[in-house]
């Protein structure tokens, strides 16, 4: 029986039939000359053929290769979790008034099994807002998954949920782990891992829906759809919903709960835009825009620490050199492939570092108590609307310093900048109605 558990609500690939007959389907479905992977939906071509004649799927290769010789086996999710008489929530923290409003709304929507969106500003405390609803769902004996496109979000979330729901066994699934799958009521996983599930979850929580690669990958969007039971529902969490989600909200196809205020009750800082002509050409000569230099010198004089976001990794060395030339010192550069990335970010947190010059890698998931945010080249294509709002959200996150300054230097007011400012305005308007300042 123990062995059966791995089949509950999942597709398990095998090239040999199991001992007992199970519901199954071909891993690669072939019909009329075309072939499609039934796990990820990828369409196969003749280039995906092995010398032994079998076709294999390259798209979901990381989850273990599927070929035409494989079948996928499953047992429908039996949901053998007991109803709990008491709430499994062991979290001792207190929700703020505006968080309680949102938490209650979500908890009521979950009971109606409607699909919903939690549109909460950066720094609103999304995780905690979900605790009451999650406690209720677990109490009903529901199987729940909390999925995120980013593995570091999963790794950070798992210990928090383990503490908040101490009595509920949880499974953590991601590509970098060694140990094998376990069947648990609460699953925390990357969105890639959802590909293995089939009608498994009564409630599916998808964190950071606007983050790469979920927004651009039809495969992952399909995974989210398949992992949820037909009778189940999902909730998307984001600070910056993309156009598609906003359309669903406008068409009332998805219920929405706004949290326009940060946990400390203040509004989001609006982004100030300064135009500067041909800053890139001037950078080649080792010069930065004069206004930017004056602003950064002022920060240095007052001891204000700041983050400077730039479009590309290649921009980091010349900008660092130009800053040094201008007399702005005491900071370091950080990028995705930086071996000392974690140490540098930690140094900034501890206050041993005056500023960081960085790319979009620090756009989400990092909190520094009191920083000003400066973006150079905000009109570059790498800064999407969502990225700009996330970056602006790095400022003013701490209760002691709720007002941060966000400045964007760009050659022209691109559409992404206008949309980002409009989104911040939209949220702040709602926030004022709730008494934000």
């Amino acid at each position, binding site marked *: 029986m123990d062995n059966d558990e791995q089949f509950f609500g999942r597709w398990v690939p095998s090239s040999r039939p199991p001992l007992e007959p199970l519901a199954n389907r071909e891993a690669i479905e072939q019909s009329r000359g075309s072939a499609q992977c039934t796990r990820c939906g990828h369409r196969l071509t003749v*280039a*995906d053929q*092995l*010398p*032994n004649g*079998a076709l*294999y799927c*390259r798209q979901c*290769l*990381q989850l*273990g*290769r599927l*070929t035409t010789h494989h079948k996928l086996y499953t047992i429908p999710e039996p949901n053998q979790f007991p109803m709990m008489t008491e709430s499994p929530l062991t979290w001792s923290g207190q929700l703020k008034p505006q968080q309680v409003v949102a938490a209650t709304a979500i908890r009521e929507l979950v009971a109606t099994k409607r699909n919903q969106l939690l549109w909460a500003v950066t720094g609103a405390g999304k995780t905690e807002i979900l605790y009451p609803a999650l406690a209720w769902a677990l109490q009903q004996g529901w199987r729940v998954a909390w999925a995120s496109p980013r593995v570091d979000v999963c790794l950070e979330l798992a210990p928090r949920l383990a503490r908040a729901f101490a009595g509920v066994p949880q499974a953590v699934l991601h590509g970098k782990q060694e140990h094998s799958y376990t069947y648990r009521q609460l699953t925390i996983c990357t969105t890639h891992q959802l590909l293995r599930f089939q009608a498994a979850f009564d409630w599916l929580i998808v964190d950071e829906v606007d983050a790469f690669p979920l927004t651009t990958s039809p495969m992952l969007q399909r995974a989210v759809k398949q992992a949820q039971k037909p009778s189940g529902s999902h909730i998307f969490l984001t600070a910056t919903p993309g156009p598609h989600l906003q359309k669903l909200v406008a068409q009332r196809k998805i219920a929405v709960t706004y949290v326009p205020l940060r946990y400390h009750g203040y509004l989001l800082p609006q982004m100030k835009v300064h135009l500067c002509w041909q800053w890139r050409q001037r950078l080649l000569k080792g010069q930065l825009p004069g206004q930017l230099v004056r602003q950064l010198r002022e920060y240095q004089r007052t001891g204000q620490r700041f983050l400077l976001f730039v479009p590309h990794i290649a921009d980091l060395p010349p900008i660092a050199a130009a800053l040094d030339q201008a007399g702005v010192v005491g900071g370091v550069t950080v990028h995705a492939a930086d071996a000392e990335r974690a140490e540098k970010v930690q140094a900034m947190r501890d206050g041993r570092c005056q500023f960081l010059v960085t790319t979009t890698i620090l756009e989400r998931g990092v909190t520094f108590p009191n920083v000003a945010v400066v973006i150079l080249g905000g009109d570059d294509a790498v800064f999407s609307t969502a990225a700009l709002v996330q970056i602006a959200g790095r400022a003013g996150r701490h209760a002691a310093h709720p007002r941060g300054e966000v400045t964007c230097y760009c050659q022209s007011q691109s559409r992404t900048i206008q949309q980002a400012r409009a989104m911040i305005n939209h949220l702040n308007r709602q926030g004022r109605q709730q008494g934000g300042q």
Partner: protein
Amino acid sequence: MPLCVWCNRAISQTVTLTQLLSWGQFPVQEVCEACQERLTRITGSCCPQCGRQQRAATICHDCERWHDGVVNRALFQYDAGFKAYMQQYKFQGDYALRVVVQAALAQALQRTTYDVLVPVPVDAATRQDRGFNQVTGWLTGQPFFQVLEVVADHKERPQSAKTRAERLVTPQPFSLAPNACKLLHQRRVLLLDDVYTTGRTIRHAIDQINLSGAKAVTSLTLAR
């Protein structure tokens, strides 16, 4: 825009004036530059026996221990980049990745003098599982003879999962095919394998080839 077969990112190909004026088809690039740089070529001086990249042109300390005249050449250093490549190509079975090293291998084979090319075989169970032989997958139409066969049909553990000491005591896994003597008699043989680690496998293969009456045996591996 074509996508890189390894990292799946778009390749921005630059077209030179010569290509434009040659009026022929543009060579299609299948691997992006960043991915090509993940593999390190062995250049300059190397150990005259095993082909390992080193500063001196003298025999390396591993080969001193073997104390024989085996000659091997390798194309790439066996570093983190090549390991990542082998992980995806051989162990995850991503056959499409064979193109990443095909050009380098074709060039190396053209520069080497040999009569018969013999790839190191894969045992039947692994070939069935993987669906291909990782060594012959790299060949682009060069003729070869599969004169070596794997004796034991199942192996208890792959070489790559063993320690150095365990690998060195591995018994002879190969035997000669029935037509081997006819094909190899008085010919210069070039053995082809994926990775030279301890040199145990390649020496087992060389021993068998020598029994067939070949004139000379050298070996070429993708990595050292």
